[in-house]
């Protein structure tokens, strides 16, 4: 088990390094970072000065090695754009993103799993059809559109919720719904499919036969098995929500890490982008690892394997 964990950890480090090398190269290939830093109105002399100041005239591998060396020493450098330490900048933005991500995945799980179970118990019923409709709608509706519709209803018409910002818990309600709804359909369909399969299994019939209550059979026997792939999926979705909630963060003016990453790319703010990529890849690795642990707890066969 230890060898397995160490191997996976080593692989994760390699993946992280590869991602950072590729992103570093792509950022440099996609345009002159000096031009992005200087802004639209810079003169050629401005560009030249910035190129020299930031060392963009050095060979790419040297620039990368320089960054890596500092990063390994815990120094992510200063944001080219904000002129503030990258670590404090990201810490500030990450709290918003984490809050949103955790709320959204909880929202998605607590609505999608019961709906998926209900749909599996009564296939082709009105519940199943409603669940199907919700999941199709969730996949089909772009999140910026859904976000704006919620704003129109709850902020402009009903005046119940603030349209943008992150000052209070009320500010997170609509973004949570929008982001969570996006993750919901996949979780729901997977729960439904898993449950349908498990409910037809022999041991469920046995459980019923020996007189176990319906609720106990459903949640203790069936769901425990059906949920294994859902946990893996939720972990991936969580990673996506932390790094990819760009649109939702932009619409609700949340100033989170996803939006910071997107904007930093177009600003060629290399230290910020590199640090964020590192953090996002770590998130994926950690969540995948945690989902493995959770699955091992849920399914003893995985522990043995």
């Amino acid at each position: 088990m230890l060898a397995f964990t160490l191997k996976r950890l080593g692989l994760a480090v390699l993946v992280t390094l590869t991602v950072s090398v590729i992103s570093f190269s792509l950022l440099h290939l996609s345009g002159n970072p000096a031009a992005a830093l200087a802004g639209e109105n810079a003169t050629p002399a401005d560009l030249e000065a910035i190129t020299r100041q930031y060392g963009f005239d050095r060979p790419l591998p040297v620039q990368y090695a320089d960054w890596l060396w500092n990063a390994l020493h815990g120094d992510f450098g200063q944001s080219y754009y904000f002129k503030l330490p990258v670590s404090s900048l990201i810490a500030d933005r990450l709290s918003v993103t984490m809050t949103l991500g955790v709320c959204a995945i909880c929202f998605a799980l607590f609505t999608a799993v019961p709906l998926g179970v209900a749909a599996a118990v009564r296939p082709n019923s009105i519940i199943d059809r409603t669940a199907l409709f919700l999941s199709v709608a969730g996949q089909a509706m772009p999140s910026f559109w859904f976000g704006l519709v919620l704003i129109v209803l709850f902020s402009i018409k009903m005046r119940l919720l603030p349209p943008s910002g992150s000052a209070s818990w009320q500010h997170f309600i609509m973004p949570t719904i929008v982001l969570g709804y996006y993750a919901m359909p996949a979780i729901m369909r997977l729960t439904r499919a898993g449950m349908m399969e498990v409910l037809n299994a022999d041991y469920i019939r046995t459980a019923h036969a020996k007189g176990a209550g319906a609720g106990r059979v459903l949640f203790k026997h069936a769901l425990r098995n059906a949920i294994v792939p859902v946990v893996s999926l939720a972990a991936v979705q969580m990673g996506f929500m932390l790094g990819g909630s760009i649109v939702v963060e932009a619409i609700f003016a949340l100033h989170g890490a996803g939006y910071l990453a997107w904007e930093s790319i177009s600003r060629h703010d290399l230290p910020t982008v590199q640090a964020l990529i590192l953090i996002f890849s770590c998130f994926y690795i950690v969540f995948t690892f945690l989902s493995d642990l959770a699955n091992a707890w849920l399914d003893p066969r995985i522990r043995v394997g």
Partner: protein
Amino acid sequence: MSTEGSASKPIVNEMKPFLRASAFALVTALSCGQAFAGKADDTVHTAFTKELESVDFYYQSAREGTILSRHIWDGLVYRDPKTGEYSGNLAESWTWVDDMTLEFKLREGITFHNGEPFDADDVVHTITFITDPENKVVTPSYSNWMKSAEKIDQYTVRIHTERPFPAALEYLSSLIPIYPNEYYAEGGPTAMGLKPVGTGPYMVESLEPGKHYVLKKFDGYKGPKTKAEIGTIDIRTIPDINTQMAELLSGGIDFVWGVPTDQAEQLTTMDQFVVANEATMRIGYITMDAAARGGENPFTKKEVRQAVGYAIDRQAIVDNLLKGSSEVVHAACYPTQFGCTDDVMKYEYNPEKAKELLAAAGYPNGFETEFYAYRNRPYAEAMMAYLADVGIKANLNYLKYSALRDLQKNGGGGFGFLTWGSNSLGDMSAITSLFFEMGDQDFARDEEVSNWLKEGDTSVKDEVRLEAYGKALKKIAEEAYWIPTFSYNANYVFTKEVDYKPTPDEIVRFFDMKWN
């Protein structure tokens, strides 16, 4: 100072324009008869689209930064946005001692927001700091025309320029805010970015970098700008324009600008808002690779370049797409800039003539070419449709500004639609000289034009400048190195409680705002 859109356009704005438009239509259709806060708490709530990198003016390049700087700080000179005339700001008066020395008598009795008194030391420290390459200001060209500043006595200071620089007053009024020397020496750009201190009509009460700025009226303000009437200006960064609209409609903010034309038109139907349209100093232009920097191409022939001018109905693009205060522009500068003249060859829409010129140049059936653009894709596409009508088949390459800029530096992207906002500077050296003096975006490489422009840039005599600039503009138009297209405009939308008249330099002045 990039304005709407620019290189870092929010992702949402790039997505599915139809859905965005219909979402907005839904927003406006459903909302009517709202009540608004604002006047009651003496606060104008507004929004920035862009995350501002720093409030320290010298360490940012956004229009939002310029707007904040006009409120927090003062320059030595003030330019009246309505008349364009210069008057003293932190300086009382000035004289040119010689072609390269400007002497200022400073105003006495002015204090900074932190109580520090203003005198010559502040001016000398600011200029010494920003002209030192070690300090890495973001846009060195704002300040590197100055060699040094010298204190003569406590209220007299001299600025020595690197070369004769007639646009000095324009730069000093727009781009050189003066900082308190003791505070800046101690805290530098970091302190100034987090807790700015100036002499302007508003002081910063609180700020969260890139997110939120609260300005409070400075009661001790003594300069030529209007003394602020509105107590507090609360600015939040809201990247998506639709969300800004939602905030406006739900009463969360009172004032927005940079509203797209279609949305502004819908808002004019709502009673509770005022929609104002005003010109900006940004103009569009079509550049062509006359100097064959990217290799042999049809645009090395004058007839082909002129044909492009005749082929495009710029008036129709203005009437149907830009609307508002936009106008067709004929010279390679913004009409109100010093030196700019309309007395140049004009290319009215005449597709037949364009075809004749193409035939004369040896392209009776037209040709195929790459066409580059970085903003306002619909405008670029309209131009391509006109070009196709005369036989020029243009393939659009739509790039990020930084990528296009890089391409042009190396001689690529020679045929394209670009724009320039001149940093809101009222002198044509801020545009024409920048693009026609053999720089990396000069695809004309015309020595005569370059020399005339340099003559205009370095003479302190107005008549010499006007003549030299006039000759350059005439030749640029006649040779059709550029086909200037149109000037841009901006829409400002605010609640009826606010009384405000926008100015053509696209700088929002909250100190000119009043409650109705």
